[in-house]
């Protein structure tokens, strides 16, 4: 079907503001991505996949300004031993980053990788392209075509510490497009951390190839800058007996759309995507997940919890697709919201599409208020109502946080959640 002229115009208007970096091995992939993007057009609010989230501000030619959060709070993960890779408003900062040297992994900046031949060529835009079917993800194609920076991470062993990407936002009008590639060899294992608001508007894409028996852990805390807007994509392919675990904490943010597209292509693989979101007031948070089972005896889990108040909006679109032959699939999906007042809303679209006959898939979605019985129980023990409400809120979020395998990281996330709640206690 031909695109509507209005969509073509909107897309071209946006493209006019961008310059495609044209050097070396990635050029062909970028040009392909631009063709994909032109054929689908940027999202508009009439698109089914954008029914609950207005894409306007993510798509418009110029990013809206976002004030930089002033805080003396110690950034998350700061106390951990890690390899730091810092981006300031979407530009790699060599000064603030550690040397990109760590045993068991090779790290290179995307903007520096200009040779004609590069291992990343086999992945850059490849998983993104695959993830465009059956649902179009135009902002990811735009990212592949126009990303100006990012890192290429090739994991060959088991690095001794996590690789930590820190996104600093210092300019009110920054508009950043980052693209990362993570390739994990057979049996290798890595933990990637991400934190910070990145820019006034942030478009980020991460493509992850997890080879047979390899392991990928991902813990992300999206920055608290209230006015920031972000559209992020994770595309992952999982080999036989591999493990993929991703957790995202989102507190504040006037617009966030996190898409995660996973394909389980080898038998006995495991994928978990989890998220905890805290929204107060002008907050819109969308988790869109698509997990495809295309192998035997794989397990996938989607665990999303949102706490919403003062008119905040949470969205969940989660799908499990079990292809013919993907027998013994174990798929689990839960999306829940805790609505702390009547002005807030949670919109959920859980989907299962199953073409195999020997599978176990379960899904649930709920919206509720604080449990009055439990609140009374805590208060009857002397815990003041504000603190008791926070305890129950953390209790609600616990199921998502527990998906983080590393206890120290889970504790770090819990502390952030508790601090966020305490700051807002009446």
């Amino acid at each position, binding site marked *: 079907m031909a695109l509507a002229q209005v969509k073509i115009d909107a897309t071209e208007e946006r493209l006019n503001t961008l310059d495609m970096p044209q050097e070396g091995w990635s050029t062909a992939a970028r040009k392909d991505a631009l063709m994909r993007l032109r054929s689908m057009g940027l999202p508009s609010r009439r698109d089914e996949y954008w029914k609950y989230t207005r894409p306007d501000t993510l798509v418009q030619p110029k990013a809206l300004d976002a004030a930089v959060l002033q805080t003396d709070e110690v950034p998350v993960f700061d106390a951990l031993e890690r390899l730091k890779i810092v981006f300031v408003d979407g530009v790699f900062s060599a000064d603030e980053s550690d040397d990109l040297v760590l045993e068991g992994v090779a790290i290179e900046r995307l903007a520096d990788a200009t040779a004609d031949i590069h291992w990343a060529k086999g992945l850059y835009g490849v998983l993104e392209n695959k993830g465009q079917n059956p649902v179009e993800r135009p902002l990811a194609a735009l990212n592949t075509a126009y990303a100006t920076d990012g890192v290429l991470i090739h994991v060959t062993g088991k690095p001794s510490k996590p690789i930590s990407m820190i996104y600093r936002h210092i300019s009110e009008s920054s508009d950043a497009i980052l693209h990362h590639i993570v390739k994990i060899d057979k049996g290798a294992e890595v933990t990637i951390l991400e934190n910070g608001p990145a820019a006034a508007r942030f478009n980020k894409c991460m493509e992850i190839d997890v080879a047979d028996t390899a392991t990928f852990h991902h813990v992300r805390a999206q920055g608290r800058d209230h006015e920031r807007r972000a559209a992020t994509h994770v595309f992952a392919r999982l080999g036989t007996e591999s493990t993929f675990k991703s957790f995202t904490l989102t507190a504040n943010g006037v617009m966030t759309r996190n898409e995660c597209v996973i394909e389980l292509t080898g038998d006995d693989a495991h994928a978990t995507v989890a998220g905890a979101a805290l929204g107060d007031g002008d907050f819109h948070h969308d988790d869109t997940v698509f997990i495809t089972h295309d192998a035997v005896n794989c397990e996938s889990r989607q665990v999303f919890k949102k706490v919403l108040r003062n008119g905040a909006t949470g969205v969940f679109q989660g799908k499990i697709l079990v292809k013919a032959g993907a027998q013994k699939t174990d798929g689990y999906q839960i999306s829940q919201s805790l609505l702390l007042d009547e002005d807030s809303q949670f919109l959920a679209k859980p989907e299962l599409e199953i073409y195999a006959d020997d599978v176990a898939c379960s899904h649930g979605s709920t919206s509720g208020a604080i*449990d009055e019985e439990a609140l009374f*129980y805590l208060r*009857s*023990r*002397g*815990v003041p109502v504000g603190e008791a409400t926070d305890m*129950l809120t*953390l209790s609600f*979020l616990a199921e998502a946080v527990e998906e983080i395998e590393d206890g120290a990281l889970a504790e770090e996330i819990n502390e952030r959640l508790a601090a966020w709640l305490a700051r807002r206690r009446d």
Partner: protein
Amino acid sequence: MLNIKNLHVSLEEEDKQILKGVDLTVEAGKVHAIMGPNGSGKSTLSYVLSGKEGYEVTEGSADLLGEDLLEIDPEERAALGLFLAFQYPVEIPGVGNMTFLRTAVNSQRKARGEDEMSASEFLKAVRERAKSLKIDADMLKRPVNVGFSGGEKKRNEILQMAMLEPKMCILDETDSGLDVDAMKLVAEGVNALRNEGRGFLVITHYQRLLDHIKPDVVHIMANGRIVKTGGPELALEVEQNGYADILAEVA
């Protein structure tokens, strides 16, 4: 200690009167038991005293140590020294039992203007008390009441009571769902807390709990009122003849 006068209580949601003029005084150092058939208003009395929502006091008063209980929030009542051991303790996934206990203890201390307990002091105190209630380290670490057996939940209530050191303890059908051994353990825990400064109100259907927690005074409640008061022998009378005779006698 606890003074309840002519207490009338209705449900907020529907026009139904549950308590129809309860008069009761519990002195420091005494154990009072309330017995009565189902629906007589025993549990409602415990909820109204501890401040649960959904009830409306239409007449009468209740005060603890001279403070008007009905005017203050549940957490303030707790800090004042009131404790309710729940018939059905609530499960709270994701909140560790120790975290919960420590928050409760220190919230009360803070409310009373006392110093908070340090982590080491607290740990020592919990371990001592947990040991005598046969509560192991695992139960202390697990989320509050999650996956606890009926007996474990009740022992956990008594542990909270021991840690919070309340002045007035209300036990709401603490014997329900307990086997004989578990009941003995719970009763021992309660008896260990009996002292001159502390009052108890033990609500139960059956006399058997009162074999282990010996009451000073026994009240029979029926249809929202206390209809008869006597010594421990009154509980034995209920055990032998049921409530019917007593109710017929006072009717």
